[in-house]
């Protein structure tokens, strides 16, 4: 059994190595690329040999198996193998050279990964470049190896393998596509696989289109930009020396326009701007490399992509565009839709550390981010909280004493689990109107929630701190009381999040996971949001019934049944700490993130016919809070709601405009109870204004958990009942 798995993963790795050259792990495209590589039989064989040797060594050395399986370690060796196969005649010596070069390529890849990893950069095709140059320079001494003449006499070869019909077909093709720029485009694509012919280019272009509309349009965009640039400078892109390396523009466009960066207007714009740079580099580097008698291959692509990605990482201000892809799904469209989905659901933050409001009851923000008084510069992402009465006054009587202020002496809570990092106490409360500029922050507590996330509350009441340094506190635990120490003319609570542990560290922008916002329009539940000045807020309390239904510990199995079959969805967790439900029969997976505030489903892998998929759609965003009439809205990725054809067109313009926007809303309904709710219905509506693909789902919850699921899609409806041994 182990062997069978090993062989399957080996084959997967082999296939994916081909796709990796175009940044994909899509099987169809990869197989197409394999076929293209076998246009030249020996080159194709050398390619396979190179990947297999690299992978065998990678396995025996115990390198990262996921990387092997996704072809990450194989694709550079593949390129080396293909290059050798094209250049030399087949011989035993060649086989030996392919194997050792593949191993060298692998080592360089692993080494570069180690070096570049800490900069968060990919190694691209640098290993291939280094090895192929080494071989090129040494080739003149490889006298035993015959230099291949294949490729020089294309028609002869075609005649030999397919007779006159094939030759005629080939010429017909050449005439048909004998459009200057288009031909060069196809040849440039084919050149990636050392196939300098139009047919190979067309097949690759077709595969590219099937794989990703965004990648396809980017390939054209990058190429055209270069084409026009050459026109502008009075050079000719179809000149042989440039044509063979035209893929540099294409790969740069795909990499920066949509693969390593979320495809957006700005990324397309930068593709147009950067392509001329690639062209200039190509010309100038060629001048240097010519002297050594070697080609520059994909060097300009590597230089520009790495340069640009690294430069983007050094931006000081939080980026709002040209955002790097965080979770690579290997398809630009998917990256984009996931990104938009994430942005909508998490406000660009994930759930790892949910930060709650640090108080009980209803408070008012007296100074928000970028506040007009002190929340500026490095301390701009802070909040000041006070309590106002119904007349919007912060104090009773005349407000001459700290005790008159409603917030004075009120409990300060830990905003999230963590360790007490720093405590400062012993500073007297100021008289009203005075400030203590010597001890600016006053009495302060800093909590460490994570190596890079600390929270700080300041101006606390002298002697009120109830925790000690190093102590572990739970979210919501009382840690101190509000006071009036430090730079505080009247009692208030200063709250900020920071990435470093010091009192006085600069602030970071980090959202509050959930809060109730009171306004003239009623009560709203805000999630992953930032309270603004004058907002009236309260920390919500999670509902036991919902916690019980959705707090899924790994190992728990949700069991449902309908008239057809039984469903067993197991809660699992993987080594990346991702939690997901897995259908025990089909292996389909629905990924989710959960904390005591909210359940959010993020991704689904598997058959969309499975009821697990409907469940995944129904539970896109479920809050653990409840109040009468609570309605939450969210978005759903369009590629999960619409068919391939609809999406085909949407994909092309997705970086600019999304017109397929399914709207998800969930309405909470409950039977009234004195204290503990014992029954609740969640009604889910998924709608799109431009189609009738509406869905309506019901999730019924009782004390035992989810009792019933009703899925209504179009005119079909399904009813799943929880099995009695649910828990």
């Amino acid at each position, binding site marked *: 059994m182990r062997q069978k798995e090993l062989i399957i993963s080996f084959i997967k790795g082999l296939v994916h190595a081909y796709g990796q050259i175009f940044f994909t792990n899509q099987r169809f495209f990869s197989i197409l690329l394999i076929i293209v590589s076998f246009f030249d039989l020996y080159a194709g064989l050398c390619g396979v040999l190179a990947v297999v040797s690299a992978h065998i060594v990678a396995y025996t050395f115990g390198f990262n198996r996921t990387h092997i399986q996704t072809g990450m370690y194989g694709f550079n060796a593949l390129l080396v193998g293909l290059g050798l196969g094209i250049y030399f005649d087949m011989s035993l010596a060649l086989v030996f050279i392919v194997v050792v070069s593949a191993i060298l390529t692998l080592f360089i890849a692993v080494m570069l990964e180690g070096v570049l990893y800490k900069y968060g950069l990919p190694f691209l095709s640098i290993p291939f470049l280094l090895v192929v140059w080494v071989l090129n320079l040494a080739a003149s001494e490889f006298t035993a190896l015959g230099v291949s003449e294949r490729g020089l006499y294309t028609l002869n070869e075609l005649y030999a393998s397919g007779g006159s019909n094939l030759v005629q077909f080939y010429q017909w093709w050449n005439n048909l596509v004998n459009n200057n720029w288009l031909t060069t485009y196809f040849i440039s694509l084919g050149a990636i696989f050392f196939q300098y012919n139009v047919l190979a280019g067309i097949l690759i272009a077709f595969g590219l289109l099937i794989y990703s509309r965004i990648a396809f349009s980017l390939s054209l965009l990058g190429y055209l930009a270069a084409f026009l640039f050459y026109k502008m400078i009075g050079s000719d892109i179809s000149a042989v020396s440039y044509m063979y390396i035209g893929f540099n523009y294409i790969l740069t466009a795909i990499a920066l326009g949509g693969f390593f960066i979320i495809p957006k207007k700005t990324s397309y714009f930068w593709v147009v701007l950067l392509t001329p740079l690639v062209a200039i580099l190509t010309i100038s580097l060629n001048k240097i490399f010519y002297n050594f008698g070697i080609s520059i291959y994909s060097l300009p692509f590597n230089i520009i992509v790495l340069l640009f990605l690294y430069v983007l990482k050094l931006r000081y201000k939080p980026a709002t565009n040209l955002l790097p892809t965080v979770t690579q799904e290997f398809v630009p469209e998917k990256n984009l839709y996931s990104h938009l989905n994430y942005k909508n659901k998490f406000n660009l933050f994930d759930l790892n550390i949910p930060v709650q409001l640090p*108080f*009980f*009851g*209803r*408070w008012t923000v007296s100074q928000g981010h970028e506040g007009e008084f002190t929340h500026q510069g490095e301390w701009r992402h802070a909040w000041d909280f006070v*309590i106002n*009465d*119904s*007349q919007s006054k912060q104090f009773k009587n005349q407000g001459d004493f700290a005790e008159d202020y*409603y*917030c004075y*002496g*009120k*409990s300060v809570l830990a905003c999230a689990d963590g360790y007490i990092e720093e405590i400062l106490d012993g500073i007297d409360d100021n008289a009203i109107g005075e400030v203590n500029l010597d001890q600016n922050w006053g009495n302060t507590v800093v909590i460490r929630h994570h190596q890079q996330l600390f929270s700080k509350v300041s101006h606390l009441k002298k002697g009120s701190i109830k925790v000690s340094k190093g102590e572990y506190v*739970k979210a*919501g*635990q*009382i840690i101190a009381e509000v006071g009036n120490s430090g730079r505080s003319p009247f009692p208030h609570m200063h709250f900020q999040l920071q990435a470093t542990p010091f009192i006085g560290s600069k602030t970071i922008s980090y959202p509050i996971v959930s809060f109730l916002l009171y306004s003239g329009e009623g009560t709203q539940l805000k999630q992953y949001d930032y309270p603004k000045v004058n907002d009236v807020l309260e*920390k919500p*309390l999670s509902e036991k019934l919902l916690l019980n239904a959705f707090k899924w510990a790994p190992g728990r199995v949700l069991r449902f049944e309908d008239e057809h079959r039984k469903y067993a969805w197991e809660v699992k967790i993987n080594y990346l700490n991702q939690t997901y439900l897995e259908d025990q029969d089909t292996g389909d997976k629905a990924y989710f993130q959960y904390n005591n505030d909210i359940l959010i489903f993020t991704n689904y892998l598997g058959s969309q016919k499975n009821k697990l998929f409907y469940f995944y759609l129904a539970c896109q965003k479920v809050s653990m809070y409840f109040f009468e009439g609570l309605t939450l809205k969210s978005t759903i990725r369009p590629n999960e709601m619409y068919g391939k054809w609809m999406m085909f067109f949407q994909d092309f313009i997705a970086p600019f405009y999304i017109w397929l926007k399914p709207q998800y809303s969930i309405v909470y309904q409950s039977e*009234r*109870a*004195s*204290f*503990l709710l014992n029954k609740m219905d969640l009604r889910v509506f998924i709608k799109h204004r431009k189609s009738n693909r509406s869905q309506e789902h019901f999730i019924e919850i009782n004390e035992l958990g989810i009792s019933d699921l009703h899925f209504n899609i179009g005119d079909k409806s399904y009813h799943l009942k929880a099995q009695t041994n649910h828990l």
Partner: protein
Amino acid sequence: MEKKRFERPIITKLNTGMPNKIGLKTEYQPIRSIDGVAVKELIENYGSPVYVISENTMRSVYRQAYQAFSTRYPKIQFAWSYKTNYMDAVCKVYHQEGSWAEVVSGFEYDKAVRNGVPTEHIIFNGPDKSIEDLEKAIRNKSLIHIDHFDELYTIIGLCDRIKERPQVAIRVNMDTGIYPQWTRFGFNYDNGEAWDAINRIMISGKIDFIGLHAHIGTYIMSANAYRIAGNKLADLAVRTKAKYGKAVSYIDFGGGFASKNTLKGAYLPGTDTTPSFDEYADAITSSIINSEIKPEDMPTIVLETGRALIDDAGYILGTVLANKRMADGTKTLIIDVGVNMLFTSFWYDHKITPAQDFSHHTESAKIYGPLCMNIDVIREYADLPPLKKGDQFVISRIGAYNMTQWMQFITYRPKIVMIDQQSKVHVIRNNENLDTITQLEKVPEHLKSIKK
């Protein structure tokens, strides 16, 4: 620390300029209007005497109280004590603010239901609940606070007939260090009776035991008493959880918060001596937060405070009927508000303020109501400026109990008006007339005519 400054001792004669046991200096202003409506106008339009309730005061006091608790503890629920004032309009203001209902009789229960309170949000207290009342409350899933063992047995008996699990709490009494200790309601904590009652409920298996209730007394001037009550109730909650694995959903601290009225015989005025909501809230919430109840089991704190919420919002306006000097030389004033309308005058020295301008010269007077009864005394002594017949006055802080414990006696009960937040006046209860009083009477046939 700075050294305290020494002041040489002085001897001064007691005078009425300082608050002392003789009385207060009369440096106060006349009350010409309430919430922007002239007293004169109110009396003109609605008669004298007339009860006035300020919606504005009701809401703002409620919000102060709610804020005092909710900024200290995450789960707070107020329940309006119907017996304090069950005028529909009054109750509805509190229900609008989020208050549940706390009732002590079938009548109040029905009134709460009629006011639209969800039955799950009605707390049924008191020693007198009929079988019918209990049955109704059980079916409606109202919260029944059991007062004595006989009631518990009745409920257990009803369970067999009604296939519904009663939602109950027990009322607990205890020593909280104050005098008098109220022991007549509920089960005693200190002698183990309360724990005994909990055991019987849990062992019966037919009842959902979800809460604990204590009402330690009335007009409690020491917030600390609530802290002691909280500790004892939390102890019962922890023991219940430990023995039966069942966490109570709520702890009801009842009422008993003092209003700002001055009790008879008090040395200092109520405005200076009664604890603020903050002090009560601090004692109550910290007793639960600091208890051994686990964070995930933290109960809702329920408060049934009545008097402290409504007292300040109520006024009675009246007119001077006559001045009179008694045979012993005591100066007396006869007004048209009697003890039947101002029941609380038996407890408090109500503040009486003229509604028109006056000088600062005052004289001590005894104030009588209009009833033809010797006990009709509103104030034994009050320092008031000289008032003439027809002068108007305002008696403040009378919102609690007067509109429920009042008595129809000798004459009709007057109108009750409410001034809303836009200073609009609404009659919320009309005055009585001959028909309203006599409509329930029945005269036997042979007495229909008084001619022989």
